[in-house]
Each structure stands twice: as structure tokens, then as C-alpha cells.
């Protein structure tokens, strides 16, 4: 896309993906602008998580293009996509349960560090310096989400709300340009959601671009500048929260739900 304006960071064009004959995504197109919060909403089974998985390379799209910062990333392996500066969290956390909180955050630094197996095994000075830097950076990210005091706790001892924040800290320690949050407010209490809203605003101020996949409607409506609505794998609406709220098809898809 030569005519693509600079302000677009992620451009998804006509992406389709089927599983055993079921079209989880059907010709979905949308774009994400830099330093803005874009949200993807939709009822259960609409294809929201599939969309994230296709963008991050967990699934390969059957057809369509995905451009990130001008380069085509469709079909690349997940670790390559991640190394391009695309971070994500998971709906079901997917934290590393055998590690402590800070170790989880430290794994985020993996892509930007390079000590090899031998350097690490023989504890060469270069590897030790890098390890110290990783620890400091991970600690900064934990501080950003307000978990620095829990750094040495094992993951299993944290309540759900804090585990979600560890997932965000792990993503942040990748120093990404683009962050995808998969249902970050799912299962959180009211005050925890408020904390999350503040955090997301702070991240945008720091220049991050965010794609939000969410069920929690008031949360999405208050945060997002643009909302993409999926239903049964098809994009049925796109626009500002106001536009989406009054769209006939969206109301129909969410029949009975107050937006």
C-alpha cells in the first residue's frame, strides 16, 4: 500500500481464516492508527481472539494481508512477529507458572538481548552485565503496573487482577511499539478496572499504540477512539464509540444488551 498514510501502524486487509470448514474470520479489514487506542468488540465466538492470533503469527491467515509499519507480516512465525515490536497479552493469562513475577517480566527482554547458551552457562562478564540490565528493565516495567513489591512472589500466589498486570508488564518489557490486550478487564473488580484504565492512558501518553479486545462495554466505550465490531467472523461496523453505539447491526448482534 504505497498510499498508506504514515499514521497507520497496522493495516489488516481482507484477512480470512477457517478452522475445519468454519470461517472464524471472513475478509476482515481494518487499520490501527499510531498512538491511538483501537478496540475490537463482538459477541462470544465472533473471532476476536482468532484475529489477535492471526496478527501475531500463532495462526497463518488463509488469505489476506497484514502490514505492520509498512512491512508484510502475514504468515511469519510468532517469535519473528514479536521481535518486530508487537507485544500481546492473553485472555487466559498464559503466564510462566514455574517462575516468579519478575522472571516473567524478564522473559519479555528476550528479543532485545543476545547472550548465547555458552556465555550464560559459563557466566561470562558480558552475560552477567546483560542479566543485570534485564533485571532492572523488568523491574521498571513492574513498577509501571504497580507490582514492584510482588517481584519475588511466585505467580501462583497472585490474585487474578495482579496476574493480568504481570502479563502486561511482560509485554511492556519487550519495549514494543504496538500492544494488543486480549480481554484485560475480564474478571477484574471495579477498582482494578479503574487502575487498568489509568495504566492504559499512561501507556498511550508514552507513545504506545494499543489494540484492545474486550467484552466489558463501558470500559471499551470510555477508552477507545475507534471501535471495530466483529460478528461471526465478519466485520459488521467500524467507527467512533458514538457511531458504533447507534449502529443497527451492532445493536442486533448484541440483542438485548445495553451498549
Amino acid at each position, binding site marked *: 500500500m504505497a498510499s498508506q498514510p504514515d499514521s497507520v501502524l497496522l493495516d489488516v486487509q481482507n484477512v480470512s481464516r477457517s478452522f475445519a470448514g468454519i470461517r472464524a474470520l471472513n475478509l476482515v479489514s481494518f487499520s490501527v492508527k499510531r498512538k491511538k487506542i483501537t478496540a475490537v468488540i463482538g459477541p462470544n465466538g465472533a473471532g476476536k481472539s482468532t484475529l489477535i492470533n492471526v496478527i501475531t503469527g500463532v495462526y497463518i491467515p488463509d488469505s489476506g494481508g497484514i502490514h505492520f509499519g509498512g512491512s508484510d507480516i502475514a504468515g511469519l*512465525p510468532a*517469535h519473528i512477529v*514479536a521481535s518486530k515490536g508487537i507485544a500481546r497479552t492473553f485472555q487466559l493469562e498464559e503466564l510462566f507458572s514455574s517462575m516468579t513475577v519478575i522472571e516473567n517480566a524478564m522473559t*519479555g527482554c*528476550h528479543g532485545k538481548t543476545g547472550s548465547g547458551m555458552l556465555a*550464560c552457562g559459563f557466566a561470562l562478564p558480558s552475560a552477567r552485565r*546483560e542479566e543485570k540490565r534485564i533485571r532492572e528493565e523488568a523491574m521498571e516495567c513492574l513498577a509501571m503496573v504497580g507490582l514492584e513489591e510482588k517481584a519475588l512472589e511466585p505467580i501462583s500466589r497472585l490474585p487474578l487482577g495482579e496476574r493480568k498486570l504481570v502479563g502486561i508488564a511482560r*509485554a511492556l518489557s*519487550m519495549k514494543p511499539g504496538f500492544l494488543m490486550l486480549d480481554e484485560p478487564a475480564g474478571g477484574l473488580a471495579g477498582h482494578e478496572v479503574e487502575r487498568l484504565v489509568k495504566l492504559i492512558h499512561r501507556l498511550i501518553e508514552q507513545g504506545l499504540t494499543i489494540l484492545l479486545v474486550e467484552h466489558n462495554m463501558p470500559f471499551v466505550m470510555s477508552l477507545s477512539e475507534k471501535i471495530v465490531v466483529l460478528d461471526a467472523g465478519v466485520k459488521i461496523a467500524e467507527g467512533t464509540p458514538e457511531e458504533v453505539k447507534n449502529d443497527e447491526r451492532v445493536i442486533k448482534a448484541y440483542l438485548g444488551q445495553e451498549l
Partner: protein
Amino acid sequence: MNSKHRFSLLWVVFIVGLAVLPFVTPGTYVIGVMCFVAFYATLACGMAVLLEQAGIFSLAAPTFFGLGAYVAGILAAREILPPWAGIIFAALVVAAIAYIIGAPLLRLRGYYLACATFGLLFIVEIALAQSGEITGGHDGLMGIPPLSVVGFTLRGDFHYYFVSWVLCLGCLWFFFNMMNSRVGRAIKALHDSEVAASSVAINVPRFKLKVFVLTAVMASFAGSLYCFYLQFTTPSMFGFPLLVELLTMIVIGGATTLYGPVLGSVVLIWLREAIHVYLKGILPKLTAEVDAVFFGVLIVAILIFMPEGLAGGLDRLAHFGRRLLGKSA
């Protein structure tokens, strides 16, 4: 910080004990047995890291151990390379084999990988037994010279005791450093959640292959030293019985810590010695089957009373003891 401190203190005690042992025990019997403990502990540790930390269910440790022994042994016995160069060459050969085998096999998961590596175990054992001209066949490889480095020849249990334990502790130290670095975190991460590991830019297949090749190379070093220690190898030394012993060591000792498998090999090998020494009068026809019965009972007992192995049990005991002391103080 506190637990790390305790950890190093435990190791200091262990290493000092090992260093003093040859000078306080009469004859060479004890240190001779301890040589076997060191070789087996090296293997068991590598295997435990693969199984427990990386979640790679590979049963190929005896195979790489045997290949390391045979490659170095053949090169030295035929006077193609001096023993020390043979050890390095064997490690390179084993690394290449592990890489070629690992690249396709590590795509398999869990039981499927176990089956495939289990097959490898038998294939290599049969190949060694059937290549009589090169390997000496079933009768074994004879005429392996002792290890000599820059004019100094290692002879007897005393020398090999130190060399084998330096190798074992060296491997443990390497694993300890590695598991507390970005590489170790990547290995633990891909075990916990592959999809999350790749989401933080960890190349999952590559790190699986790396740790697989690493443990193969360590097994090869142990195997090469083993063949120079015994000056004799047979294919059956690297077959199914060794695999069972290694798994027993890991279960007895516990795989979650690095010292667990070491503890397991100390206990298993000395238990076997004790069975042979004390039960010979009662059961004169003592065979490997009797060992198997004892180890079977031991495994069941461990799994019931200490599911995390001796190391886990000791940790709990220490924790309990500290709480008790803390309350009385």
C-alpha cells in the same frame, strides 16, 4: 537472597566432602564407586533438565553417553587420535548427531518423543553390537588406552575420581548459571507455555534443539571419560537398563532441583553396592532382577511419601526444622 545463600553453603559442604573423601576412606573401593556416581549423576542431571525444565521427554541420554564412549574409545584404541583429542572429536560428532536427530524429532511432543528416542536407544545399541569389525561387537571394545594429557597419564580410581567429579560439578555449575539466565528462562518458558514463549520473541524450536544438543554433548563427555576409566565398553552398557537406572535416580532424587539427581545417583549406586555386599550370603544367585525388585519398592515408597523426591523431601524437612527452631527461639 537467603535461599541462594543456603544453597551455596550446601554445595560448599558437598564439595569439601568430596575432596576429603579419598583421603579418609581406606583402599580404592569407595572412590571407585564414587566414580560411577559422578558419571551417572552427570547424565541424570542433564536428563532431569530436559525432562523437568524444558519438558522435553527424551530418553536418549544413554545413547549419547554410549556414542561418546565408543567414538573416543575406537579412535584411541586404533591410535587414530590421542585420547584427549578423541574426547573433543566425540563431543563434536555427538553434537552433530544430536542436531540432525533432534531437528525432526523435537517436533514430537510428550509420549511420541519418548517413543522415538526410545527407538533410537535400541537402534544404536544394536548397531554397536552388529558392527563387529569397528566396535568389537557384543564382546565389547578392547584395548582402550588410559587417558593421557600432555604426558600425564591418568591411572586408577584416584585420578578418575577427581576428573569425573570435576566434569559432574562443572556440568552442574553450567546448568545452574544457564537456568538463571535468559537462556534458562527461555527454556522454562517454552515448557510452561509455548504460545506465550513465542509471543516474547523466543524461538521455541531453536531453544529446544539447543538444550537437547547441550545435554547430548555433556553425556558424550561423560561417556568418553567412562570408556577411558574402564578401558573397555560393551553395547549393553548403554541400553535399556542404564535408562531405567537414570530414571530411577531422577525419581528418587527429584527433578526440580539440580542436586536432586546427584542425590539420586549417590543413593541408588550405594544401595546397589549394599545389596550386593550384604545380601550375597542370603541370596547367592544375586542378579540384576533382585536389584530391580529393591529399586521398584524404593520408587513406589518415594512416590508415595516424597513425591518431589529426596531433594524435595529434604527441603520440606529443612523448612519444618527452621519453623520449629523459629518458634522455640
